[in-house]
């Protein structure tokens, strides 16, 4: 498992080195420092300090406890639509937005730390491209599209290694956003239940796996 930091660093590095990123005007518009994304997707830069080297580790924190969330209403709608396209409700668990993933991502891209600030640039740039593509092709913002239309936009960017040269930037955004959505979803009660994670409870003894399972796997 490559850790997320490494993955995202590679994504960022690749994005920076990739001339294809500049292929689409509406994708590169806000690459310039201080530039605003098109439409209503204005940026609010996080300015707060972090939680410091000695935070209270015992209490449970609300999202935004240490720095303000910065997404506006339109960004939150887009974030919810894309998160739910990636992790929709099914017979096992709810959709991503139903368990707080939008707040998770908002907290993430609003955080003052270097890694999160890099992700902020990736996500906001991706949001701008996504809405631009939606308006260009379907004359509606991404969040208002039907699932089939959303998929028509996302299918070409859902795998970096298969995406065209012109779509490398958006594909890297999609990979990063899927990572964030999965990070937010699978660290909730609902996400752990979906995976049938049954640990994190005190046990009087640890018995190891059942012999029948080991036999079935040829590991007995």
């Amino acid at each position, binding site marked *: 498992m490559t850790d997320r930091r490494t993955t995202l660093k590679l994504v960022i590095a690749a994005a920076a080195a990739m001339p294809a990123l500049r292929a689409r005007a509406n994708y590169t518009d806000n690459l310039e420092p201080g530039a605003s994304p098109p439409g209503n997707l204005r940026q609010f830069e996080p300015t707060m300090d972090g939680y410091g080297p000695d935070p209270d580790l015992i209490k449970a924190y609300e999202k935004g406890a240490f720095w303000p969330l910065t997404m506006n209403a339109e960004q939150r709608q887009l974030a919810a639509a894309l998160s739910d396209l*990636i992790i929709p409700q099914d017979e096992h668990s709810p959709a991503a937005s139903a368990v707080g993933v939008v707040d998770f991502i908002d907290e993430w891209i609003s955080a003052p730390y270097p890694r999160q600030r890099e992700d902020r640039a990736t996500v906001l740039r991706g949001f701008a491209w996504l809405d631009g593509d939606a308006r260009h092709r379907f004359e509606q913002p991404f969040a208002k599209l039907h699932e089939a239309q959303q998929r028509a936009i996302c299918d070409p960017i859902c795998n970096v290694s*298969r995406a065209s040269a012109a779509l490398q930037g958006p594909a890297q955004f999609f990979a990063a956003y899927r990572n964030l959505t999965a990070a937010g979803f699978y660290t909730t009660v609902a996400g752990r239940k979906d995976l049938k994670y049954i640990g*994190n409870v005190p046990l009087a003894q640890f018995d190891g796996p059942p012999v029948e399972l080991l036999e079935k796997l040829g590991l007995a």
Partner: protein
Amino acid sequence: MPFVTASSQRGPYDVIVVGSGAGSGQSAYTLCMEGVKVLMLEAGRRYTPATESPMFQTPEMAPLGGADTTDKDKGFYDATVNGGWDVPGEPYVSVPDKWGAHFTWWRARMLGGRTNHWGRISLRNGPYDFKPRSRDGLGFDWPITYDDVAPYYDKVELLIGVYGGETSLENTPAGPGGTLLPPPKPIVSDHLLMKYAPRFGIPVLPGRRAVLTRAQDHRTIPGKLHPGNARAQRILAEAMRKRSPCLWATPCGRGCAVAANYQSTTVHLPPALATGNLDIITDAMVYEVTMGKNGRANGVRFVDATTGRHEHATARIVILGASACESARILLNSKSAQFPDGLANSSGLVGRYVLDTVGSSVSGQIPLLESLPPLNEDAADGLQVYVPWWLYKRQLAHELPFPRGYHIEYGGGRQMPSIGTFSGLEWLTGGSYGRKFKEDARRYYGSFIGFDGRGAMVPNDNCYVEIDPKVKDRFGIPVLRFHWQWGEYEQRQAVHMQQTFGEIIEAMGGRIQSPIITDPVKAIAPGGYMIHEVGGTIMGADARSSVTNRWSQTWDVPNLFVADGGVFPYNADKNPTLTIMALSWRMSDHILERMRRREI
């Protein structure tokens, strides 16, 4: 009141101990149990694992899902507070600041130091590890043998509680029997290793970690550790009764509120405090050992971080256990007309021969482990099994391009999902999203395994610390400047790790995500990443070639000792903490004997 301040000290003290981690905690314990009055000085704040350990907290309760940040370098719930790769206001210098020559220094400014978050892996050095030069002509021999240290490994294992298994493998010793707790049951991915590693001639042993797999025997152990000392036995028995066996849940690195694993704050310090012989000043940043007119140390100077005032504490004996590099820093900063190059430095070797552990990792995905039924695999938080170095004979025959070995720390299982668990899955999923992504997550969850090689380092002249001529910390204390360069032996060893791990994963039917690294420069983790730095006040057979003698006593100043990893003249593949404790106990016994003889 055992926690005192600079102005409420209850001297006179027999001994000052600088630091409160593995080495210093062990010294304080051993000395206090025998009636010695000890003053411990810790640079960081007081820390109480019973109330501060976030044991069962889940990621969504933390900011950023518990992600590592520059404030909490190993994640929000890591036990380290006021520490990490950077300590605010306490810089250090690494020149040249570039990959391969850079050294990264992990510190923990808190009571108990790095023992609060460490991996608890507790391997003994073997006989070869104490006499490496005699075996292959490289580096330095220790001035002591395995047999000198073995009784202290026994004692430390009994005191702190270490699980493990018996072994008769070469240079992989266990105690005489009865010192180890039973090992935990292997999880499914462990069984996978146990099936495939032997096909390569690679042995798999029960892991060794300082975790209580059952309650300690508080009836017999105190008598073994403190024969003839009824009070010490009573205090230790009570301390042992207060420790809970492992709950088989929550990562040890968060700290353990029920004291089921070893950290200085839960195992060494409580009984030492219970003797009434230990006073502790926290927030006390020691920067200088002071000397009396008789050529002996008479105390230390420190900055009280809460007031900013410079203070002086005195005692008959000074023990430095501030961590290898920090103790070297204190000595180098203890300059005077008599000692222009720093104290205990007539050899010129203070700060020299800093060593770390070679690290290299490969992970894989195993189809056999996909879509397993629900299993609680929290187990002992890892290292239920491990692989000791297995190619001693080939090395002796010069059949390998590197002279020293490594062990393998291996892990897998259905661990609590974290923010990184499902990152970067495209190589397996083809970029799925929607319902398919959720199916993929269920399928691949728990099917990943990881191999971490941890290898020996031969000392070299390019790895050392000195005092930076310009930079000072927030207290005005001159800081360390690191110099680092891995040798070719270490780099080749890391490539061997990469290739070996790749072969095992493929034999398991697994897939390797990142290509196996065969470039020796890139295969090895940067200096300091393993947080195993030792050396800098190395022990040796004479005052010309070492800083400390076989008792961890400085050659130049007879009442000045080093209790941390600084005394290591060689860093075997075995994780250093257990050896630090064993040497500290041995040193403390020696101090007690000399005190009884009124020699110091």
